[in-house]
């Protein structure tokens, strides 16, 4: 696992590209090697890229509301493909409609994501967490 490498993308049929471009710039600036798959990324594409780059984390965005449907099963597929220590982060407008963040977080933690972020998250905080989480995951 290369602790520098992360995979980034917007899942499903989601076309929201603005946040994705900003995340790419931000995490690159913060020292990561970002493989940015852009928008409309399938679970398979995420996993292929993670395998290929030996990534430490996959950062999934979903803005358009179908996150619940699109993200289901990603963790299981990762394990299937041998990515059993990979970190899964997800953020954006994850479900349809204004929903208390706690509910959303629980839903996606239950799906196997390590961390769940609201759209207003401070990216500096995310970088800190990601570095710490990767360090923890890298320990034998």
């Amino acid at each position, binding site marked *: 696992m290369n602790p520098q490498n992360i995979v980034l993308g917007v899942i*499903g*049929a*989601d*076309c*929201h*590209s*603005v946040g*994705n*471009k*900003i995340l790419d*710039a931000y995490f690159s600036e913060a020292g990561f090697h970002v493989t940015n798959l*852009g*928008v*409309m990324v399938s679970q398979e594409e995420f996993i292929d890229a993670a395998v290929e780059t030996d990534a430490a984390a996959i950062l999934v965005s979903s803005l*358009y*509301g*179908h996150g*619940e*449907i699109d993200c289901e099963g990603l963790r299981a597929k990762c394990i299937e493909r041998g990515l059993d220590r990979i970190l899964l982060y997800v953020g954006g*407008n994850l*479900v*349809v*409609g*204004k*929903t208390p963040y706690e509910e959303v977080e629980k839903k996606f933690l239950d799906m196997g994501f390590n961390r769940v972020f609201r*759209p*207003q998250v401070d990216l500096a905080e995310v970088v800190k967490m990601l570095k710490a989480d990767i360090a923890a995951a890298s320990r034998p």
Partner: protein
Amino acid sequence: MRYEPMAWKDFLTQRKSVLATWPTGKDVDLEGGLRYQRDIPEAKNFARAMSGAKAKGRTLIQPRAGVALIDDHIRLLRFLETEGTADLLPTTIDAYTRQNRYEEAAVGIEKSTAAGHSLLNGFPAVNHGLGGCRRVTEAVTKPIQVRHGTPDARLLAEISLAGGFTSFEGGGISYNIPYAKKVELGDSLRAWRYIDRLVGWYEENGVSINREPFGPLTGTLLPPFIGHTVAILEGLLALEQGAKSITLGYGQGGNVLQDLAALSSLRELAGEYFEKAGFTDFDLTIVFHQWMGGFPEDEAKAFAVISLGSFVAAAAGVEKIIVKSPHEAAGIPTKEANAAGLKTTRQILSMLTDQIICGDNDIIRREKNLIREEVACLMNAVENASGGDPIQGIVRAFAGGLLDVPFAPSIFNRGRVLPARDNEGFIRLFAKGNLPLSDEIMAFHKERLAERAKAEGRAVTFQMVTDDIYAISKSKLIGRPK
């Protein structure tokens, strides 16, 4: 460029395969659709509502709204026309349907039925088919439009127009570049040629269907001239196929004078380009979109953004305004939140309806001239690349970066243009990519940005662009350093 309607024979051949792409396609027949449309009362015809608004100098209000299930969708629309006093209704299509992924839409319908609330971000009109569409259009009293973001919306158009919708949003550029990743531009333009031909056919048979290219594109720091050029091109392509009721759109930029200049020049320029291309029998109207970029999370602040947009619409005297809700930053609005956006908008419009606000002034004139020149640069470039065929012109222009939409997801868009606000909040170009703008024009953009950079004591960099993208959601117009 030469404009020629698609041969009817070719249309009919294509039609067979279009209708075969999903089972609900087989219920649609052209004559049946026409008969159905002819029976729709005038007051529910979208094209007529738009021209009525123009004649009376009124601004009509329209929300966005769509949920997975028919009954819920009807309840939602009825609420928006009664409590929300919407003048025009939408049916926003879900994102699977937009990508022609009808199987996934079917899953969404199932899961929504099971969950008891919508898990889809719109109404899957293709899956619901002709019968479903008619139930919806019959259940409401106001003109109703399909709003989506579908690169290939041929089947959706067939079903929804035969299903009683009297307006259809989109275009081959505006529903591809901001909404898709890998769809060839030529493909979407040809799909929309088909749709416009279908609309033209209805027109030829005495049924007016309103067509509305999607003006705001990525909704993010779009300099007016880029959206305007796309809107004019899509208007021309629709007219080419016989559409007559054309509504061109523009999304709020945030600087009031730039917005006023943009709205006024969109109307003028489109009229001029349409006539120059030989079209005379058209009915042009203008739609203004309240702020299409990132919204503030706080609802009180969102109401302010909604109000400011409404103010501009009133000052500009547009025929229609598309309304946001206080839930914008969070998720698809509840029907109450959606109605709240409508009510705020209505209140501003009514309070301003008899007022003259800002007439012309020097700054508006300066900006209008600028937009006129910028649009001319781009339109000429498309013309030159076209070899006479507008679709070719557009495809080549995008390939060469002569047309380029900032922040768009499509791989057929160069994505080299970077906008930023100047010191007064006007959207200018920081990087022009390959846009064919004259040196004078670029000198003006650079000078204005340099002024801001100086005021902020920093260089014009991508950080400034990012700051500007976040600004409105953080209660500012310009993303200044702290």
